[in-house]
């Protein structure tokens, strides 16, 4: 775990630096509040509704597809690291795995999940 200490330190440093910039900006920037400034920007038109509205279901479909395929990609990495040691056995094992993955992709394709109309 010791090799992760630099990473943690640098992350903490990044947060401190970002906070520093924010504080600096708060100290140097003007503060002239007017009512109109705090409204959401809508190209100068008066607001006519709240932005908290429902979004199309296609975004959720993409998110679900992503979860499946990214998990598969994550599984492929350990295999790729050890591929040369595993040889033909590892190759056949992974071909079965990728075949199942491709069947899933073909199913998503045929059922129209990849269309964005």
């Amino acid at each position, binding site marked *: 775990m010791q090799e992760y200490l630099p990473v943690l330190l640098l992350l903490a*440093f990044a947060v401190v630096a970002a906070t520093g910039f*924010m504080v600096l900006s708060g100290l140097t920037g003007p503060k002239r509040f007017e009512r109109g400034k705090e409204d959401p920007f809508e190209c100068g038109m008066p607001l006519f509704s709240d932005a908290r509205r429902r979004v199309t279901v296609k975004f959720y479909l993409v998110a679900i597809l992503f979860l499946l395929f990214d998990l598969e990609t994550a599984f492929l990495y350990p295999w790729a690291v050890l591929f040369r040691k595993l040889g033909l056995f590892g190759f056949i094992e992974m071909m079965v795995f990728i075949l199942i993955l491709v069947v899933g992709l073909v199913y998503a394709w045929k059922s129209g999940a990849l269309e964005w109309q």
Partner: protein
Amino acid sequence: MDSAVAFLTSKIPFLASLPFWVVAFLVMLVVALVILGFALTYEGIATYIERKVAADIQVRIGPNRVGPNGWFQFIADGVKLLMKEDLIPAKADKFLFVLAPYLVFVGSFAAFVVVPFGISLIAADLNIGVYYVMAVTSLVVIGILLAGWGSNNKWALLGGMRAAAQIVSYEVPVGMALLPAVILAGSLSLQEIIRSQGGYLGIFGWNIFHNPFTFFSFFLYFTAALAETNRTPFDIPEAESELVAGYHVEYSGIRFAFFFMAEYGDMFVVCALAAALYLGGWQVPFVDVSGLSPLLANLLSLGVFLAKVIALILVMMWVRWTLPRLRVDQLMRMSWKYLVPLTFVNVLGVSVWVLAFDGKGIPALVMSLLGR
């Protein structure tokens, strides 16, 4: 890091009297400052170069008022952004609105930790380097999504949702396109992958020239990486002609600067990854850097690495100012129907190649035919 601490304690007697962790902490602090300084300077200069490239392509002059040739334009821009008024919309979700720029900034900065700048110039050579980069750059997606939702603005919401869908779709081909280099090197550590591309073959030892599949993998990765960084032709999330500015419509001053810096930081990281995995990283063509004195070797490898990365960044800028923007449906089709199947084929091809030729690439096979 341990070697750096040992070196310092042997050179400066005062440090030897301190406990190990104090010295290590000081070393890390200096490294963090150097990386932050590098990232900020690079991001500033990159904005200037981008404007100059845009101007050249559009036959204009570009920024030329601040300093000779406008060289100090980025300093003026930075100071201006720092001294702008910081606005939070009245109806925004304050916590998420404030949190989002931090996530984006930290996510893009954290990836710099494993960037292999030179033969021993790396803040932390993690043994899961490639994985780590993919994990922390995903923080940016969360930041963008929070920014879009937290602003309570229709443009921002649409931009944030589009950005999330796009980055998430292209995450799959990016991950798959990096696999061939991992297979060839048998390691996820970036330094290890770069070392495996050295040797007597010179530039033909690079992974991109290993076999036809790795050659295509590089271009697949670069295309998908363009989409990952929301650059044109994949800049649907910020499409200024329809969404004004997308997810950062409501951000002003330094918070906007965080998003801006993160975009350029991400560009550097994906180009560094492409250079490290496929273009030999800091390997100097036909010069064995490990044989030189440490100082010379580090300077030489740093220069070569930065040259490769900057060349790729310039290609990204060139593409941005040349190609028109894709539509949303074209964008999704590009990822799921073209890039994902092609990267599958590439991974298959590379693994068959490694089995068939015992891991030797075309240049090595040619050399063995010629009797070397």
